[in-house]
């Protein structure tokens, strides 16, 4: 750390300006969340008063009780977590197996298959929306957990990421395990996977985040209230309680808080995941 004394005045001014700009940006980033939480704890008249108030006089926890009474947020939570966890588990299995085949095994057609997997990342979602809906319609899966889970279990980028990661694990480990009598699948299970925990965690956490926040697809394939995921629930809540800002902010807090807590504890994986996304280019 450079102490303030060792800095020349010009540098001091510059670093001061840098901090001022960054701080202003950070405030813009965080302020909406602050406003969301404080509004969720206000009385309605405190929102509508011309004198803006940063904090409620007395926190009104009843807003949360009311919001949860008007809409089944418990059910939304359950649906969201159940779907997100299922997608993560199935996706990691599919990605892990595919990445193993594409990095560790030699067979004809392997490189073309890998290119094909990469190519699917360029397919725009607009092309898939209608036919994917129809497939689920024919399978009579509309408004079921299958419709929410199955179409999301594939992750081309996840396969790419894991493949790159597996390639950095020395093959000598495989050979040593083979001599000890390990089968190939046992190598994947007992050597490669434990060494790739970080890569799996990164993909898993990103998928979980994507599922928690996903809106369009759950909106399209569910119609009953019991099947709604949290984002759809929030949008329906907004349609119903438009202008009841205290209730709506309580609902929004309900939807954002769990993931923010996960983020603060597992920040490393989020940052790593985004960084790796950029390296794709």
């Amino acid at each position, binding site marked *: 750390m450079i102490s303030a004394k060792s800095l020349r005045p010009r540098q001091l001014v510059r670093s001061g300006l840098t901090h001022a700009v960054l701080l202003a940006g950070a405030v813009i980033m965080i302020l909406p969340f602050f406003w969301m939480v404080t509004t969720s704890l206000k009385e309605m008249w405190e929102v509508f008063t011309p004198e803006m108030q940063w904090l409620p006089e007395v926190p009104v926890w009843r807003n949360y009780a009311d919001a949860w009474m008007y809409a089944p947020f418990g059910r939304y939570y359950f649906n969201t977590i159940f779907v997100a966890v299922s997608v993560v588990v199935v996706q990691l299995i599919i990605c892990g197996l595919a990445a193993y085949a594409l990095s560790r095994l030699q067979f004809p057609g392997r490189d073309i*298959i890998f290119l094909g997997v990469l190519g699917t990342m360029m397919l725009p979602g*607009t092309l898939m929306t209608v036919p994917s809906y129809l497939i689920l319609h024919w399978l009579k899966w509309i408004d079921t957990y299958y419709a929410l889970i199955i179409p999301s279990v594939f992750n081309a980028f996840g396969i790419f990421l894991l493949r790159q990661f597996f390639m950095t694990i020395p093959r000598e480990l495989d050979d040593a395990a083979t001599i000890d009598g390990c089968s190939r699948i046992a190598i994947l299970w007992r050597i490669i996977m434990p060494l790739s925990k970080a890569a799996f965690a990164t993909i898993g956490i990103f998928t979980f985040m994507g599922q928690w926040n996903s809106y369009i697809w759950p909106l399209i394939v569910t119609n009953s209230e019991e099947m709604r995921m949290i984002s759809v629930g929030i949008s329906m809540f907004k349609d119903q309680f438009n202008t009841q800002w205290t209730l709506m902010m309580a609902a929004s807090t309900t939807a954002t808080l769990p993931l*923010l807590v996960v983020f603060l504890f597992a920040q490393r994986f989020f940052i790593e995941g985004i960084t790796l996304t950029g390296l794709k280019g």
Partner: protein
Amino acid sequence: MMAVPQAKRRRQWLSMKTEQTVLGYLCLIPTFVYAAVFLLFPIFYSLVLSFQRWRLYGNQEWVGFDNYRRIFSDSVFWLSLKNAAIYAVFFVPLSIIIALAVAILLNQKIRGMKWYRTAYFVPVVSSTVAVAVVWSFLFDTHYGLVNDWLTRIGLNRVGWLTDPDIAMFSVIIFSIWKSLGSNVVIYLAALQGVPQHLYEAARIDGAGRWGQFRYITLPMVSPTTFFMLIMGLIGAFQVFEQIMIMTGGGPMRATYVVYMYMYDYAFRYSEMGYAAAVGYIMAIIIFILTVINMKVSGKFVHYE
């Protein structure tokens, strides 16, 4: 090993090869099944559908290019395309420029860098729908925080989401706010990959701060910029969630974008063939944009 006869060794080697082939394809079965059902089939079936008239519960009827003709003669389609283009033209470059600026500031080995990074990243991990609800409140004409501040400094209230001339820009502001953090983190990684000796050499040659930025930083991060540009455009043409929540496509269709147009035809009017045709047109536009981008950027992007 030495004792194993040539023939037996070859047989072992062959069986190892078939074993790997069989196992390799076994591992890829889930991937193949998914790709066949949810990727390949939709691409072809979309095309077939786009030549049919089909209300979900009625008969499928072959209509040739009718859907395409109807789409191209529908002024609402052109409006929705124009709106998506406006969104893309402002959102993509602005979000990239601001992200690069923030990343450069953060990259100066600054105190508290991690705290700033966390702050900028918080909107990225939040549900788009939930924070769009919050911004609808901030942008509310009568009770919103933004107008409250404007009136405090003596300005008039602005109809952020109710004025057709302004609503799209409010959505763009929201989208920049929401996605800035991820671009910042990507740029930070790119900046940290620029070798320091390049800057030292430039300083010795008498380059100032601007010169260093213009001739070293910018070219060195150009692959990242290019990647963001392509991904940003693909995403921007499919913008949907924040608009659905903040304006619902209004006021007076000022924020009605092309994905909403497709959504409405598919899931409100159940015109599956028509919607599939819209989907195909969008995919082709995105494809053309990507190709143009690659051709143009190819001249400016610096790869090591």
